């Protein structure tokens, strides 16, 4: 059986889900709100990572560096200038995005493992810088901020960010712009020969990813009311966001959502039921998934569809991508 929803139906469904999510803070316990807001942060980060690594194939092992830049920018803006936190988080996001332009122009010249390791190095470097640059970051002591007045604000901020990133990814999947971005992953030289400025597309994706990570960092800082090098540059989160996108299927728009929700639930369940072994079971589970579904859950279904010889219905029959788009770059 095949269910194919019209665009209007999809939109309706989307609104219903959004409404339910918006009511969460009013309906459930504080514990569940914190669980959901963490989940939303995971979703936002997985989408941010997916934007650059999933669509262009430039696997970043240090995208959390931009989360850290967002965190520190936000904390310093609140601490030194007493800026309202949402504005500070937005500014932090913009700073991370602006930083990503020269960074992308330099780093995205590296390919494959060199880019991955280069980003990891950058992440380590920034963490070390944050610990030593005491006049700005207060070093390892960190910066303390006023505590959060209402958890719901944090929840809504993460919800907003996750929804924006989801919609941006959806748009990517349904546009000629997205097709051009995907050519970077498929064959950069071939794309260049067709008049596609691959540098522009790569840096664009990198900057969008930085904006997402930076904003998440800013909200996170306000949520924990504190920033130091380990909370701004969390090594575990760096890996978690990658695994979530991988599990769901990188380069797909449902992938990061599915991966984040699944992994978020599973790790919470394991942690609650096997307090001593949860990391072992978790690790085995991940190894198992990567062995048998290397392209993730969505990637697995996509591959099967491809082998059956069916095109991507959203692009080939829909009209969205076929409107003449003028060449960019």
């Amino acid at each position, binding site marked *: 059986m095949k269910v194919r929803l019209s665009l209007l139906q999809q939109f309706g469904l989307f609104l219903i889900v959004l409404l339910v999510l918006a009511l969460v803070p009013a309906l459930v316990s504080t514990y569940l709100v914190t669980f959901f807001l963490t989940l939303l942060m995971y979703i936002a980060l997985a989408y941010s990572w997916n934007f650059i690594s999933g669509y262009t194939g430039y696997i970043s092992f240090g995208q959390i560096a931009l989360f850290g830049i967002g965190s520190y920018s936000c904390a310093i803006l609140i601490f030194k200038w007493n800026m309202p936190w949402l504005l500070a988080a937005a500014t932090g996001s913009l700073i991370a995005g602006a930083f990503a332009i020269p960074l992308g122009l330099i780093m995205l010249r590296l390919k494959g493992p060199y880019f991955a390791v280069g980003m990891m190095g950058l992440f380590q470097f920034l963490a070390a810088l944050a610990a030593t640059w005491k006049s700005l970051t207060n070093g390892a002591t960190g910066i303390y901020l006023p505590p959060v007045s209402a958890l719901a604000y944090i929840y809504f901020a993460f919800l907003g960010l996750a929804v924006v990133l989801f919609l941006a990814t959806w748009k990517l999947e349904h546009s000629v712009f997205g*097709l051009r971005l995907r050519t970077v992953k498929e*064959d950069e*030289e071939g794309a260049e020969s067709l008049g596609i400025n691959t540098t522009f597309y790569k840096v664009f994706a990198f900057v969008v990813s930085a904006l997402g990570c930076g904003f998440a960092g800013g909200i996170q800082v306000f949520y924990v009311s504190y920033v130091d090098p380990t909370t701004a540059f969390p090594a575990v989160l760096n890996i978690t966001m990658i695994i979530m996108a991988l599990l769901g299927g990188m380069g797909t728009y449902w992938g990061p959502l599915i991966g984040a929700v699944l992994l978020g639930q599973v790790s919470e369940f394991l942690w609650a039921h096997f307090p001593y072994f949860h990391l072992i079971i978790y690790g085995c589970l991940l190894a198992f998934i990567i062995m048998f579904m290397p392209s993730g859950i969505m990637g697995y279904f996509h591959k099967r569809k491809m082998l059956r010889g069916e095109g991507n219905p959203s692009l080939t029959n829909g009209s969205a991508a076929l409107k003449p788009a003028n060449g960019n770059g």
Partner: protein
Amino acid sequence: MNETILSAQDLTKRFGGLLAVNQCSFDVRQGSITGLIGPNGAGKTTMFNLICGNLKPTAGEIFFQEKKITGYSPHRLARLGVGRTFQLSRVFKGMTVRENLFLVPPPADSPKSSVSKAKDLLDSVGLGRHTNTYAGTLSYGQQKLLEFARAFMLDPKLMLLDEIFAGLNPEETERQIKTIQAFRDRTQTTFVVIDHAVSVVLRLCEWIVVMNQGEIIAQGPSREIENNEKVIEAYFGSSSLELLMEEVG
């Protein structure tokens, strides 16, 4: 129509101690089908990479429609109207045939929409029935045709074909020759063709440039090149004259 569309002047490319292309100069006439031949390692593909901006020349200049284009990036050249296909086909395997064509940024002065242009191009290379097929599931010959059609989305004025006949069966080769000729007649596109199948190149091209060890050893109308002794020697060694004559037929 005897204008020069592409002109290479003293083009040199050095990779460390290796002179891949050494002071090569040649002109390509507007509307012609020009062949670039030579044994393996002669520097043919390096020459294409220099023209298309994939490599920067060590010395020398390139002019396209009397404009100096030395050092331009590949995407900029493509937008100017220099199209190419690659030795190993470079279709986007994870996208459908149609998507492969749609993603090409339309030229600013394109009279037709991408949709109708893509349809026409796919029909003219015989892929009209495969529009929704993933490019990766096509046969190798079909992938080469797709790559050829895709490059025409640029409305190229100059089209460089790197070993477009390699891996095609005789029937497909015939069809490809006809397609190139038809495209030339219809769109006035200038072609430069690299290939190892000398007989095909001699038949298809009006003008031939022969390279050996990074240098141009002969150029002229195909009829003259056929009998040029330096060319025969470069290809087969001096004793294999009969072999070449046999192949040329």
